[in-house]
């Protein structure tokens, strides 16, 4: 039983890492390899806030989310839009955005290094046990899990039940057709990208409660997010959510019942298996 709860908590952690990239790649169609750095920046922002003010780090979300939103909008406008304009096909845009965001990630690492330094940043918050069915679980992880649920639920509802969300999904399915039905495609893509960045920063902020960060850690998170987004099927946000939880449960099961050393292997075996059985991902649609 505690495998299930621990696995769900880990799934929540993974969902926080993956949601931002899901929006940026699934909707805005930008494979943002600098996603991990945005997440780390969010974590750093929260660390700085907590060390400076000693108020609950959760309050830092109040300024981090709008800040990340604006910053990512600016990045999209200045650095990505030229690529979008001149891309002759979806495939070319993906290649261009991979190269461009790869370079951007190095700039970000340099920026984080210059502002925060290279050392490990870590703090203790809500590091108390909460007993569920007799087993202790970290309150900080449960808080992050709740944050993840709130995030995933609100994103899902927004994307599927509002007009603006509908516009974003239309752009994801077919940008040119979406333009024909008077959806402002450039604006929708920018919105998706900026929203993805804000979500990534919020994820990093929540994760900082129990993970140790340093300026160079972004690439680890980008990789995990990438695996989850592709495993879930790029086009549907539910796919990434389901994939996060499957991964969390699988890794915890292997760590507890088999060997903790095999968690990475298990994760990638699962990834490969799903792609072999269903190449477009769990909830992906085969592109026409």
């Amino acid at each position, binding site marked *: 039983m*505690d*495998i299930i709860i*621990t696995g769900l*908590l*880990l799934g929540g*952690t993974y969902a926080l890492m993956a949601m931002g990239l899901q929006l940026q790649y699934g909707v805005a169609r930008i494979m943002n390899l600098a996603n991990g750095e945005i997440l780390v920046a969010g974590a750093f922002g929260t660390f700085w806030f907590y060390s400076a003010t000693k108020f609950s780090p959760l309050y830092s979300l109040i300024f981090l989310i709008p800040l990340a939103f604006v910053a990512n909008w600016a990045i999209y406008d200045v650095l990505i839009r030229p690529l979008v304009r001149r891309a002759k096909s979806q495939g070319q845009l993906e290649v261009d955005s991979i190269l461009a965001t790869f370079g951007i990630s190095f700039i970000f*690492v*340099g920026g984080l*290094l210059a502002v925060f*330094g*290279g*050392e*490990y*940043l*870590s*703090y*203790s918050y809500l*590091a*108390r*046990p909460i007993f569920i069915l007799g*087993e*202790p*679980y*970290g309150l900080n992880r449960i808080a992050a899990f709740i944050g993840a649920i709130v995030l995933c639920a609100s994103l899902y509802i927004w994307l599927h039940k509002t007009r603006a969300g509908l516009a974003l999904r239309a752009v994801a399915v077919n940008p040119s057709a979406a333009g024909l039905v008077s959806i402002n495609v450039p604006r929708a893509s920018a919105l998706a990208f900026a929203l993805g960045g804000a979500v990534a920063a919020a994820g990093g902020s929540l994760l900082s409660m*129990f*993970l*140790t960060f*340093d*300026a*160079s850690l972004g690439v*680890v998170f980008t990789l995990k997010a990438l695996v989850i987004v592709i495993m879930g099927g790029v086009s549907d946000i539910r796919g990434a959510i389901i994939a996060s939880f499957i991964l969390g449960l699988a*890794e*915890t099961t292997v*760590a*507890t019942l088999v*060997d*903790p*050393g095999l*968690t*990475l292997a298990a994760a990638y075996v699962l990834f490969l298996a799903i792609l072999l059985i269903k190449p477009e991902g769990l909830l992906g649609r085969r592109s026409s």
Partner: protein
Amino acid sequence: MQRRTLLTLAAAGVVAGSLGLGAAHAADPIKIGVVGPKTGPLAGGATITHFPNFKLWQKLVNDRGGLKLKEGQRKIELIEYDDRTSPPETIKAVERLATVDKVDFIMPAYGTGFNLAVAPIFAKHDYPLLAQAFVTDQGDELIKRYPNLFVVQGKTQWFARDAIAVLKKLRDEKKIGNKIAVVNVADAFGIELANTARPMFKEAGFDIVYDKSYPLGTQDLSPIVKGAKAANPDAFVAWSYPPDTFALLEQAKIEGLNVKAYYSAVATAFQSFAGKFGPLAENVLGAGGYEDTPAIRDYMKIHKEVTGVDADYWGSAMYGSLLQVLEQSIEGVGSLDRKAVTAYIKSKTFKTVVGEMDLRKQQMTNAWTVGQWQNGFFHAVGAEGFTKLKPVNLKTNW
């Protein structure tokens, strides 16, 4: 009138010329090459343990006018490169420092594999390699192969051996039982320590009740800690790296792994460890440790004042001592002749921040290997060679 103008001009010219010559003699700085990971997986550790010591040394030396050579005093200039935690980059950087920047001395790299990678280049250009972040059991063969190599840290086996010795003493004094839970990170140093320690535990008569490894960068260590707790150990040993060292203690507290002896290897000696955990860090054991002397406390104080970085309780003072050895050797020889300086280092012992440093056989014979947080200082409780050690406390404070 023309002659007077000519004379004035000539006099002015002589004065200007002598001033100009004087300016040229306000000598060129001594160039010191620095390489290490500013980005990449090992950057976190290097930011605390490696880079600040060189900046501190530069400031201390330059503040007193520079190193005293026979030709006069010359200040130090640092030329730094980021090796991105990649040995090929370290090699490139050292080659560049040696052949393009033509520096007078090159500081050691950060990390055992990295120092090994550049040892041949140091040897080729006669640079002494004072390898601090370098823990290996192959020291004896390496110093034969590289006469310019000085191994300042201990051997891997000392770290394992002394940690186990601390636990054995507690057990023999009936303060803890016989059951050990051991975990290790599945990366270089973690694996080496775990493999070296396993037979040592058995030889000391311990019963290993949980023995697992976890991949580098694991985000959730609760299955490991739960598993360790379920095995009911008397002591917990983690051959861990910085991120997991931080995560494991927090997880241990949450899971209620209330062992009387808790050891986590790398980063326990960081001040940020005590900073994060506060009173929970008290009585935690780890790799490193210092004797509580005024010289060391002083070094940690100016380290913070000059560089803004909190020194650690493992490598920082050792780096400081190494740099003192280099400084005394360069001034002892009176020139930047690298062969002469290397010979000088092998010729005598040196007074340094950590006490007497004896590198005459190219290997430090003394190393503090096990430390314990007591009252805000990470005291040395286990060592090879050093004898002034603090007694070990039980971790009854959870």
